Structure formats: C-alpha cells, structure tokens
C-alpha cells in the first residue's frame, strides 16, 4: 500500500461522513498519513453526501481527489456520479440493497454487498456503512480491523461505546462477505 484514495458517497444519514472519519482515524492511529475532506460545496446537492479520504505511507498532497482508487457507493446517484472517478483497476463497492443498477465499467473490480439488508438483519440499519467498510478494508488493506476498533473508541462519544462490539460484528460480516 502506497496511497489509497477513497470516495465515500451516499444519502445524508447513511453514515458516509462517519465511515470516512473512522477510517481516517484508524489510519492515523496505525501511524499512516491521512486526510479527510467532507463535501461542503455545490456537490452536496443532488442526492449525495460524500467525503474524500486518503490513507498513505507518505505525506499527502491535495486532500481533494480528482480520481479515486476506491469508491464506496451507497445509493444510485452516488454510483452514477462516482463510477467514472475510478482509476482502471480500482475498487468499486456498491450497497446492492439500495442500488438498482449494475456498474458499467469492465476495467475495475466490483463488489456488490447487500449492506443495508445485512444491517437490517442485524437489527440496526445504521450498521450498513460498517458492513461496507469491512469489505473495503478487506479488499484494500487500508487499515486493519484492530485499528478500526481503536478508531471507534475515538470517533464515538463514550455513551455510545456499548455499540462497539456490535459494530465490530458488522465489520467482520462485511470483511467475510
């Protein structure tokens, strides 16, 4: 792993920013260089909330991504918008519970995970982002599961720490999917 450029995208409320912050925190705790940039401009309109995350062995240049090595799309507008951002050989993760079309590109690796369905089966829809994140770290090696757990302790307020065992369970399901 030299540098992984990730675009997280979905509806507001799906935990897109939270997933981005979590992997950035985990990477930083793992002594990697990280940056997290939320969308705040006009790109927020039109059904997507997104953020750019870079995890790198070296100091990071621009935190804004013009292309990505990984795209996590949690709704249809996100897939429509960001599929083209992927570099050839890049990784596309799609929440297939919510996205009703197949990716078009043939020069990328596609993983379709019914993350919202899995989260629903687990009894908490808010875990869909963690299921997706599990697959993401499994396929990219961006950070290890151990550091995601450490990151959760930093990102979540103390009163929500009781959720961490369940979050880790959801992460494992994603990793093994």
């Amino acid at each position, binding site marked *: 792993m030299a540098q992984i450029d990730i675009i997280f995208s979905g509806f507001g409320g799906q935990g897109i920013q939270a997933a981005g*912050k979590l992997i*950035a*925190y985990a990477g*930083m705790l793992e002594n990697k*260089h*990280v*940056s*997290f*940039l*939320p969308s*705040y*401009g*006009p790109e927020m309109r039109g059904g997507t909330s997104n953020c750019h995350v870079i995890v790198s062995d070296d*100091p*990071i*240049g*621009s*935190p*804004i991504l*013009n292309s990505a090595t990984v795209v996590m799309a949690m709704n249809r507008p996100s897939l429509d918008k960001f599929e083209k951002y992927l570099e050839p050989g890049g990784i596309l993760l799609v929440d297939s519970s919510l996205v009703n079309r197949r990716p078009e590109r043939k020069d990328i690796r596609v993983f379709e995970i019914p993350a919202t369905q899995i989260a629903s089966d687990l009894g908490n829809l808010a875990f869909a982002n963690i299921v997706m994140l599990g697959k993401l770290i499994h396929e990219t090696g961006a950070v290890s599961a151990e550091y995601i757990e450490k990151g959760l302790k*930093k990102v979540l307020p103390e009163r929500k720490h009781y959720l961490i065992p369940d979050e880790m369970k959801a992460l494992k399901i994603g990793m093994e999917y």
Partner: protein
Amino acid sequence: MGEKILMKGNEVIAEAALRAGCRHYFGYPITPQTEVAHYFAKKMPEYGGTFIQAESEIAAMNMVYGAASAGARVMTSSSSPGISLKQEAISYAACAELPAVIVNIVRAGPGLGGILASQCDYFQSTKGGGHGDYRMVVLAPSSVQELYELVVDAFNIADRYRTLCMIMGDGMLGQMMEGVEFSDQEEIFKADKGWAVTGTGMTRENNMITSIYIDPEILEKHNLKLQAKYREITENETRVETYNCDGADIIVAAYGTVARIIKNVIKTAEKEGIKVGLIRPITLWPFPTATFEKYAEVPKAFLSVEMSAGQMVEDVRLSLNGKSPVHFLGRMGGMIPTQKEILEKIREILK
C-alpha cells in the same frame, strides 16, 4: 507533545487560539469557516472568555479594536466577502498599532463568488485591503498541524510588534481533517502592554489609542514609525520553506494547500528525470524575497502556481528582478490545479 488527534482545520484554529491565551472572539458566520465560531461558542465559556456573534463583520472587527485597545488577546475570523467588510476597522487598527489576529479562510471571488477554496485574496491581504500605508503579517499554513502552530505564532507576533497578524488559509484547509499534535505548553510572548487603555486609577497619565492625527507633521512621523516597524518585522519574521531547490531544472513558487500538490508533482516529475524545486512562502508578507534572490540563477525558469488569476506571481517577479523567466499557472472559481496540468505546464516550459 501530546497524543495525535484527528481534527478539522477550522476547529484547530479556535483550539490553537485558546491555547495561545486568546480569551475574546468576535465574529459573524460565513462558509467555509463557520466552525471556528462554533468551536469558540462551545469552549469559550469554559475559559471564562467572551464569545460574541456580532451583528455584522464590521461590528465584529470594531469589537476586536476595542478588546485589543484594552490589551487583551483577541481575534476574529471570516471568509473573503466578510474580510472585505472588516477592512475599514483593519486600517484603523493598523494605524492605532493594535495587536490582534484575523483569520481569512478564503473562498472564491470576486463578489459573493462561491464557497470553494481559493487564494484570490493574496493582493487584499498583502498589499493593504484597507486604505493607507499599512502592512500586516500574513501567515499561510499548508497543513492542519502548521495551522495550529502558526495561529499560536500569530498571537506572539501581534503582541511582540503591536501589529495585526492574518492567517490566510482556504476552504480546503478549513474543512479538512488531519492529524494534529498539540504541545503540552505553548510558548507565549508576554508583552508589556503599558500602552493599553485599562483605566488609570488616578495614578498615571491617561493612555490614548487613536487612528486620527490631524497634524500632517505628526502623521508623517507616525507613518515613519510604522514603516520602521515593518522593516523590523521583515528582518525578523520572514519565513519560507525550500524543498529540492539545489540543482533544480525549474523552481515552483506555491503557498498554502497548493504547495502540497507541488510536493506530489515533484515526486512524479522525478520519475521523468525532471528536478522540480519548491519555494513555499510561509509569510506572504513579509515576502521571502531573499530566498528567491538566492536561487535566482539555479533553474532554467520559475513557475508560480496559485488558485488565483496571478497574484503572488507579481512578488516572485519583483524578487527575481528579471534574473530568470517567470511563468504562471492558476485556477479560479474554486477549481484546484491538478498534478497532471502542473506537470504538463512544467514539461512545456522546459521544452
């Protein structure tokens, strides 16, 4: 140093100011720097300080004038259109020699423009956005860590010289999260503020803070004093980072977030056998003229890369004084120069 934490640039600005002993903040919300005010609103009461969301940017800057006159460490923050509104009071405060910190998280202009990152306020910041022969120190951080360090420095510089000090960042730096390590104890310059208007208690002559000098002889003398101070600041406080400049084929001048992109370009260019150097002014005023002079005859050409129509490039040209060709590449409106287009420009120049 403490533990490394992941924080947003805007929040780091407020945290750094609190650590530097700033206990008074006056501002008015505007994207992309509103989180500065959020953070102060939440934290300032814990420190027993003052947080006021003023009725306007103009009022906020005049409140800064008041608090600074009383000798307090004080700051305001805004983004481009808001900074324009503050200019009258900035000029007054410069004339009255008031120490204060002003943060500009620049967005794309002119006018209300857009809310994305830009460096289009370089002229306004460094050449006097308000009226009169004044200067203020302008610091341009390029990472969240450096943002923290420079905000602390800004308060020290302001107090040391009785001057205004501006932090000029951009929307990208304000909005992004990066790791930051705070030190256990900040180095704080303790100024003797015997000039402040804090009440005489009938024990001394009254102090006066003013920006009006009707007598031309007195006003000229005051101007000469200011100019002498600016020379002293230029001598002592000019800051610059140079990277990969010795034996470079081309030297790029870039500051703030753009300089980060150049560091990536340097790596990519190296693979093609092109040696790219970087001169990154950390103080935009005073401008690191001597560093440009030093490297003037090293490369075949210089290239200034900015998120503007070409502003710092003028200072690069002045510094090199015709000794080397100077090229320019800029993006505007919130667009960010890409590695690819910078590299293409470099190839074209060296062809």
